Structure formats: structure tokens, C-alpha cells
């Protein structure tokens, strides 16, 4: 049974060392023995072991002290303490000091087998954990490199991220839909002191107020019809991590008050609960809306606005940083090449020109979807202009598709106003509304004749 684990048995009684090592060798462990603490430490200077079986009572250096010394050399060392009957208290003490288990002499063979099995599983899980963490770090690096940027504006954002990430300051990320606000939030989280904690993302615009409240704050059993069991809220789950509230501009003033209190007091109460629950998280919010405007219109609380807006990162739309388009397109091309196992080498000059001239109302998300589509359909080694023809025809449609009603209205009024040379009467006639209505709409959308 090859377990591939190196075990060091430390006991001052030779017979114990011999019988334990013989028994463990049959289980497939690679076993070495040492007769004292100093001898074990000398062995450690040559190599580290996966597991230590330490006798608690040894002359000179006892098992507890040895464990402390081993942990100073090998902080993640796994140790099982061997103790005589009557010293359970010490065994418990050793567990507190980091031993993973203990055995009382003499022990049953099945007990030894179980403890060793547990230790082997524990080691395998920890190795797996280390491996997964390494993979995660690689992914995190990939995500960071996912902020593919050539433009000065994006380089400035990257430097802002590096600056703000290590602090605990609340960050507000603004920008149009699809510019990559969540990606920026994730990178801030990864570079922050909370990076080992969870990253909890919530889309505030996708849920009703009551549902959002229950999602964020959790609820106690019986808090409302259907609350058959208590549930932890996302604010609780974000403890020691980062809470990312996307579409923060959509939350109601009542929810703003609740969130403000949670942020100020670092305590929350579940819906239907009376017990305050402590939670410490870093808040990153994002919105595509103009919060200043909402604040002026009294739709967004001023105190909440300043609480979430300690540091602002504005991500400009893709059309304002055309130089990022080729490098982003290439990044997505490589990504989908890998996913579809294709070997498309790049874009022709004409194709790049089409990509650069498109207005990308859906920003990087739209670009990603376009590249995914062309990679799936592509037959040749290069993506040519003919494969991107659909972009021209769907340009207007696509622009509209990605806009909110308010944005579409604003855009359309602006287009008509421009086409009428700023003449309000003409524009109103063209739009099929009267002058007063148009003026009111222009005021609401902050448009002027020019």
C-alpha cells in the first residue's frame, strides 16, 4: 500500500520504535526512527518528514517541546502524539499546540490504522489544498493579465489598483456596462490583505428589495413565509473578505440605510433576528449610473454615497480607448482558441480596422462575445473582414440592444437634436412631442442644444 509518506517515529524506548516502524512499513509508510528530541531535530536538519509520531514523555526534551521545535522549522508539520494512559490532559494540550491526533499506549491495531489513515488523508487534502491554491494564484495572475491594456487610461487604472488594493478603503468603480468593473474589483480583492478571504459578488439590480435584503443580511427561521430554516447572509459570508456590490445605484434608500449601518457598525442583524453578528469586509461597489446625479435627485443618500466612495475608479468605455481593441481582441482570440482547440493566428488588417471602427456599446463584454462567435465559425488561419461583416449590419441594433431605455432615449434625442442643428422646435416635431416635453427631457438627460 504505497502511501508515499515519510514518517519519523520519536520514542526513547527502542522496542516501541522498532514495533511501530515495522507495523507502519507494512502499511507502506517510509519510516525512520529517533530515540530523543535532539536526535529527531538532527534528523530534521537533513530532511523534513510528512508526519511525526512523537512520544509525549521522553527524558530531556519532551514531545510537546519537540513539537514546538519541529514547528519552528516546519510550520505545517503534522504530528501525532503518543501518550500513556492518564496523560490525556497533556494529549489535549498537544492537540491545541498543533498535533493532529493522539494515541494512548497501548493502542488497538485498528485505532493505529485509523489514525494513520486519517493522517494520510489529512496530508493528501493539505497537499491538494496547496496545489489548488497554487492553481488559484496562477488563475489570479491570469485574471490580472486579463486586464489587457495598451491605453494610457487603463494603465492609470492599473496603477490606481496597485495603490488602493492594499488599503482597506471602500472603492467605487464606475463605467458603462461591460467595461470590466467586476474584473477590476476581483483584482483589487486579490491584491488586498483580504485576498485569502472570500470574494462575494452581488448584483443589486437583479433582485427585488425584499429578496436582496434577505440575500444580504440572511434571515432567521420563521422570519417570513417560506423561511423554513435560518440562512446566513452574504454580508456574513463576506467576513474577512471582500463584498462586491454591483449596480449599487439600483438599491432603494431603505436598503442604503441598512447597508450604511452595517458598514458603520461592522455588525448586522439577520431578517427576523435580534442578535447582532459581527462581520468585517472590504466594500467595493460598482455602477454604470451617475451617482452624483442620483444624489442630487435625492435618490441616493449622501452619507451612503460618501461611505462607499472613498476611492473612485472610472473605467472609460472601449470606444474611448481604441488602442486597447487589438490587444483585447487578440487576448480573447487566444482564450477561445484554447477553448475550441483551434489555431487561428490573428486578424487581418481589414478585420482590425472593422473592430476599431465599431462603437462597442457593450464594451469589452461585447468584444469578447464577437470574438467567441468568429472563432467558433472561423475556418481559416486568419480572421478576415468578411467574418466581421455582421458587425456593420448589427451595429445600430446592437447599440440599442445594450442600452437601457433611459440611455436609448437620451441617445436618440441627442441624435435628432444634432441632425436639427440644435433647433428644439424642429427636433420636437421630428420626435413627435411638443417643445415643453422635449425641453423637460433635455433637462433630465442633461442635454443642451449643442
Amino acid at each position, binding site marked *: 500500500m*504505497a502511501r508515499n509518506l515519510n514518517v519519523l517515529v520519536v520514542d526513547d524506548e527502542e*522496542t516501541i520504535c522498532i*514495533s*511501530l516502524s*515495522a507495523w507502519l512499513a*507494512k502499511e507502506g509508510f517510509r519510516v525512520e526512527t529517533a530515540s530523543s528530541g535532539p536526535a529527531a531535530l538532527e534528523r530534521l536538519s537533513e530532511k523534513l518528514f510528512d508526519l511525526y509520531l512523537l512520544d509525549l514523555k521522553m527524558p530531556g526534551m519532551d514531545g510537546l517541546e519537540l513539537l514546538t521545535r519541529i514547528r519552528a522549522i516546519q510550520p505545517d508539520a503534522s504530528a501525532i502524539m*503518543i501518550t500513556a494512559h492518564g496523560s490525556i490532559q497533556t494529549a489535549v494540550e498537544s492537540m491545541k499546540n498543533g498535533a493532529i491526533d493522539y494515541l494512548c499506549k497501548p493502542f*488497538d491495531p485498528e485505532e*493505529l*490504522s485509523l489514525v494513520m489513515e486519517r493522517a494520510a488523508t489529512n496530508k493528501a487534502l493539505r497537499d491538494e489544498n496547496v496545489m489548488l491554491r497554487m492553481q488559484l494564484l496562477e488563475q489570479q495572475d491570469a485574471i490580472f493579465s486579463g486586464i489587457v491594456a495598451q491605453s494610457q487610461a487603463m494603465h492609470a487604472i492599473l496603477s490606481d489598483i496597485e495603490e488602493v488594493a492594499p488599503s482597506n478603503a471602500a472603492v467605487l468603480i464606475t463605467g458603462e456596462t461591460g467595461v470590466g468593473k467586476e474584473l477590476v474589483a476581483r483584482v483589487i480583492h486579490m491584491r488586498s490583505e483580504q485576498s485569502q478571504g472570500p470574494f462575494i459578488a452581488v448584483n443589486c439590480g437583479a433582485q427585488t428589495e425584499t429578496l436582496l435584503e434577505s440575500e444580504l443580511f440572511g434571515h432567521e427561521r420563521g422570519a417570513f413565509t417560506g423561511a423554513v430554516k435560518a440562512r446566513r447572509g452574504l454580508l456574513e459570508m463576506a467576513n474577512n473578505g471582500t463584498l462586491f456590490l454591483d449596480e449599487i445605484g439600483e438599491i432603494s434608500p431603505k436598503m442604503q440605510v441598512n447597508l450604511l449601518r452595517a458598514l458603520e457598525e461592522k455588525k448586522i442583524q439577520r431578517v427576523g433576528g435580534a442578535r447582532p453578528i459581527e462581520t468585517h469586509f472590504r466594500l467595493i461597489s460598482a455602477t454604470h449610473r451617475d451617482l452624483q446625479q442620483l444624489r442630487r435627485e435625492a435618490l441616493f443618500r449622501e452619507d451612503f454615497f460618501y461611505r462607499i466612495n472613498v476611492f473612485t475608479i472610472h473605467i472609460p468605455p472601449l470606444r474611448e480607448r481604441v488602442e486597447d481593441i487589438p490587444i483585447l481582441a487578440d487576448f480573447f482570440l487566444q482564450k477561445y482558441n484554447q477553448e475550441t482547440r483551434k489555431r487561428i493566428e490573428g486578424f487581418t488588417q481589414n478585420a482590425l480596422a472593422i473592430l476599431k471602427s465599431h462603437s462597442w456599446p457593450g464594451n469589452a463584454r461585447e468584444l469578447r462575445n464577437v470574438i467567441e462567435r468568429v472563432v467558433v465559425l472561423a475556418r481559416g488561419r486568419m480572421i478576415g473582414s468578411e467574418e466581421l461583416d455582421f458587425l456593420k449590419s448589427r451595429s445600430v441594433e446592437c447599440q440599442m440592444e445594450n442600452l437601457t431605455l433611459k440611455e436609448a432615449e437620451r441617445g436618440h434625442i441627442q441624435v435628432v437634436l444634432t441632425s436639427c442643428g440644435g433647433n428644439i422646435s424642429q427636433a420636437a416635431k421630428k420626435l413627435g412631442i411638443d417643445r415643453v416635453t422635449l425641453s423637460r427631457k433635455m433637462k433630465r438627460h442633461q442635454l443642451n442644444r449643442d
Partner: protein
Amino acid sequence: MLDLIPFGAVDPMAVSIVAAHIQAIIGAYTNIQSERSLPDYALIATRNQYDAAKILKALHGESQGAPFKLGLLQEDLCLPILTYVYGESQLGGKVAVISIHRLIDPRPEIIYERAAKIGIHEVGHMIGLEHCRGIDCLMHFSKQLDQLDGQPLHFCSACEYEVSRRMKRLVRNGIGVTSQDQRSLEK
């Protein structure tokens, strides 16, 4: 190749069955020795058990007889650190010892089968086999008797291959292999 040595009064049927199974399954010619007195030197009086490690040490020191030796006791075996053992052996060594003390059952044939399984398991260790993860193998470590009863009376294919390979190597190296062993392996 292997001496089976009963210590104290041991059911002669159990001794014969253990020897026959070792010979049939491992292919090692097994010679039943005459009964010896109980190994008082290994008695742990406070536990009323015999220290298997001390018996192994004594058997290891014997120069007479076959190169491989398996002791068999009716009395309970243990190690200073373990409350009991069904058997104990040196991995890749020359000596082993088993006890039928804890194999009790109202049906004697069950006791004999258990003893044969433990005997083969320990001889498997002697020729260098570790515990096997497969539960359908004699080299799997049985924590309890019901697990032992659930095991078949043979090795898994991987362990069987190992037994055969190691036995052939012993024959090739002429380590204590008699003409009977040679014939046994040829079968």
C-alpha cells in the same frame, strides 16, 4: 523452506491447515515442527499476553532449521505498544508469529480458515509484501474479524504476481529453497 513451530498446546488440526494453505497458496514447502513449550521469556504477566516482538527476536536468533520460521500460539499476542496482534512478522525478514487466541468461533472450520488467512498474510510480509489496498486480497489489513472473514482465501492479481516473482527470486538465489519448494513452485 518454512518451519511452522507450535508453541504450547495448539490444536493440531489448526497447525496442519495453516501449513497446508501456506504451501498451497504461497508455494513454500512448510515443515511442521514438534511442539515447543510456551515462550516464558516473552510473557507480559501484567497483560497475560506474549510479546510478539520478543518471540520474533528469539526465532531470528535460531540458526537451526529452515531459513523461514513461523511460530503459532494458542495464547494471546501483543506488542508493548499495541493491545493485541493477530500476528507479527518482519517485513522482508525471516520470522513471523501468529496466534489463534482471538479467532474464536463456535464453528472450528471458521477458526481454521481465519488462522490460515493470518498465517498466509504474515508469510506474505516475510517475503516482502506490504498491505494491499484491495479488500479482496489476503494482504489487505483486516481491522476486525468480520473483515477477515470477508476476505477471500487468495491474493489479488497484483499481490499474486508479487508473491510469484519474489518466490522465484528466492529459488534463483537459492535462499533456503528445497527441492520440495522447487516442485511446489513448478506446480
